[in-house]
């Protein structure tokens, strides 16, 4: 990509106006979609990227399997487990992805509610990470539901308001709309619709507070769902009183670490797309996020221990499940906490990034442990999902990555959209150069 940008100075769209035309002709949508390249150039750079080949292979195998799931039914895809009813689609796709998507409400509230404007370079990335995580959690859900076309039923056909899942359904639906509104700002800028942008900007505080409310409740609710299965989830991973708190509290460092990991991948693979504001502040912001994440992890560690002490479950520690529990806590919480804290203290960015990775792995492992690995632990054996279930999960995750990259290449997430207020005045008067105003907000 970088080489093509060097060859083609026209590329690198950062505002509404074409670079090769002083009269201020606006980019066409087609040009914006191809990031200023000709179709040939675009295709040539896409083919050269080995990651695209990886995606192509995954999609070639995975899409037929997904289609097969809807033609031949769930049993064909997942083997139809009767006792472990929730497999990888929910265990990983819903329960694993949603806590890592709490970045949306955290970055939004850091900037809008707490006035931390220094976090702005990562605000949009955090919100995008949030909305995509939720959107793909819903897509995973659609693949998993027996009758996905009935998904609106809890909203319009038949209410079961005493159910935790009812709350999850409503909150995720509402929260997706809130995030879509927040994310429409860069979309409106990119499309060149400043009126829409102005409306959303006025709602920013309200949207951020709505994000906090909905996230507190549904992140917790995903934990409360396992309170329905007291005899099935292993006691070390179960607490009737605190389960929702475990899930909510662990989602906080999960979301922050996901922002660290994603922005690290971004700076390594698409630095051309990041503006100076992003590049120069990134290390400093990673330290800030690491501080927040380490405090979150410490709190999480303490409440997990309180849970064990509260129900006096120490005896389980000496069993095989106890060793597995110590592994999850040891790598995912204690090691992560040390890496993030020491890294933030010594301004060691590599250490912080490593700690962010282990935090994410620890949280995903926790969700898999609660809903899949320790589920029905009394039955003795762990059911390994069949290959088609793995293939569908990997394919949807790859679609998620491809969508993520598509948006980051184009929308003003990693860079500021220049001249956003002045551009219309510029077109009419042709007085100022379109590049002139670097208007911030």
């Amino acid at each position, binding site marked *: 990509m970088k080489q093509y940008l060097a060859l083609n100075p026209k590329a690198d769209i950062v505002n509404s106006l074409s670079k090769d035309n002083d009269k201020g002709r606006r980019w066409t949508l087609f040009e914006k979609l191809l990031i200023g390249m000709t179709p040939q150039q675009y295709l040539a750079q896409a083919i050269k990227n080995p990651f695209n080949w990886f995606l192509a292979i995954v999609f070639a195998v995975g899409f037929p399997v997904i289609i097969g799931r809807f033609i031949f039914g769930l049993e064909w895809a997942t083997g139809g487990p009767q006792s472990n009813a929730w497999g990888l689609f929910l265990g990983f796709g819903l329960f694993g992805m949603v806590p890592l998507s709490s970045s949306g409400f955290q970055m939004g509230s850091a900037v809008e*509610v707490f006035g931390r*404007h220094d976090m702005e370079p990562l605000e949009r990335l955090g919100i995008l990470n949030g909305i995509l995580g939720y959107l793909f959690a819903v897509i995973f859900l659609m693949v998993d539901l027996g009758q996905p076309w009935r998904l609106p039923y809890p909203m319009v056909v038949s209410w079961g308001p005493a159910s935790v899942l009812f709350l999850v359904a409503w909150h995720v639906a509402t929260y997706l709309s809130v995030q879509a509104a927040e994310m429409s700002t860069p979309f409106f800028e990119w499309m060149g619709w400043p009126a829409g942008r102005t409306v959303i900007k006025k709602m920013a505080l309200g949207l951020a*507070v709505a994000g906090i409310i909905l996230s507190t409740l549904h992140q917790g609710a995903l934990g409360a769902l396992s309170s*329905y*299965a007291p*005899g099935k989830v292993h006691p070390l991973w179960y607490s009737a009183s*605190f389960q929702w708190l475990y899930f909510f509290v662990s989602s906080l460092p999960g979301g922050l670490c996901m922002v660290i990991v994603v922005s690290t991948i971004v700076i390594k693979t698409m630095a051309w797309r990041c503006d100076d504001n992003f590049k120069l502040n990134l290390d400093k912001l990673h330290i800030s996020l690491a*501080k927040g994440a380490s405090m979150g992890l410490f709190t999480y560690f303490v409440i997990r221990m309180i849970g064990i002490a509260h129900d006096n479950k120490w005896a389980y520690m000496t069993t095989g499940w106890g060793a597995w529990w110590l592994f999850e806590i040891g790598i995912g919480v204690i090691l992560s906490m040390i890496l993030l804290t020491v890294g933030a203290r010594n301004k060691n960015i590599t250490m912080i990034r490593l700690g962010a990775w282990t935090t994410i792995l620890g949280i995903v492992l926790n969700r898999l442990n609660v809903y899949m690995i320790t589920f029905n632990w009394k039955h003795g054996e762990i059911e390994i999902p069949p290959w088609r279930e793995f293939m569908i999960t990997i394919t949807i995750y790859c679609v998620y990555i491809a969508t993520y990259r598509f948006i980051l290449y184009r929308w003003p997430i990693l860079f500021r959209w220049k001249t956003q207020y002045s551009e219309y005045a510029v077109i009419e008067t042709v007085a100022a150069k379109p590049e002139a105003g670097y208007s911030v907000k």
Partner: protein
Amino acid sequence: MIDRRDFLKGCLACSVTAASIGVVGKNAFAAGSFEGYPDAMGVLVDLTRCVGCRSCEAACNNEQKLPEPDLPFDDESVFAEQRRTTPKAYTVVNKYETADKNPLFRKLQCNHCNEPACLTSCFVNAYTKTKEGAVIYNAKVCVGCRNCMIACPFDIPAYSYSSAINPLIKKCIFCYDTRVKNGRPPACVEICPQQVMTFGRRSDLVEMGHERIKNDPAKYVDKIYGEKEVGGTSWMYLSSVDFDKVGLDNHMQNEPIISNVKDFLGMVPMVLSIWPALFTGIHLLATKNKGEHGDHDHKEGDQQ
């Protein structure tokens, strides 16, 4: 009657607990629990009488118009392993070896809880507990999330995964439509040659069970399984060995499963009411007298 001193002691203990843990115990919500319809019917299963003939399985298959089984109903090879209910079999009989006595057999089917976990976990309200005691299922609204299968403490609901366009939950409905609604016993009860099962008003059955235990204390374990478990079930069991030995969890909680999430659900309207003012207030405190674009270097913990 609680006297005043005990009451005060209780108050003190409660507030110390609440203060040290920070969470009010779930018993605070227990007042609203539902103990079952007064005239609900039930079945008392006496495991000491069952000989494992599987005629109940055959009767259920016939009554519910289920597909042909893989092996005929008189084939005893099925006892080699512990089976569970499936979309093709709403009831199955399992064999349990005991240390010194003859093997025991137990029939598995929906226990028709007084306050069913499947019902309370369902987000489209597909389940109904009828006043006759049956837990029935409305296939027309089921989305297929399978939360009921996760929630059921007895692992009863099965899902017909093999259907691509209309997969549904399949479980025993107490022969509600065809029999129990009209006061007749379910097919499995009626066919049993050993009178293992007694159909009647649940409250009468509890009495009858205790009577049987009292009359022959050497024969029975002194407990009716299902009288108290998860808030009580319509189907209840008498056994000559510990219930753990016949595949029933002896440590099942006595509160209905819904009580595990009542704390959380009770908190929802509070969060909805308190958070808006709380965080808008924090916003005002955090941004007062500060420029909109100031570059402040606070501690990161602010956002936790």
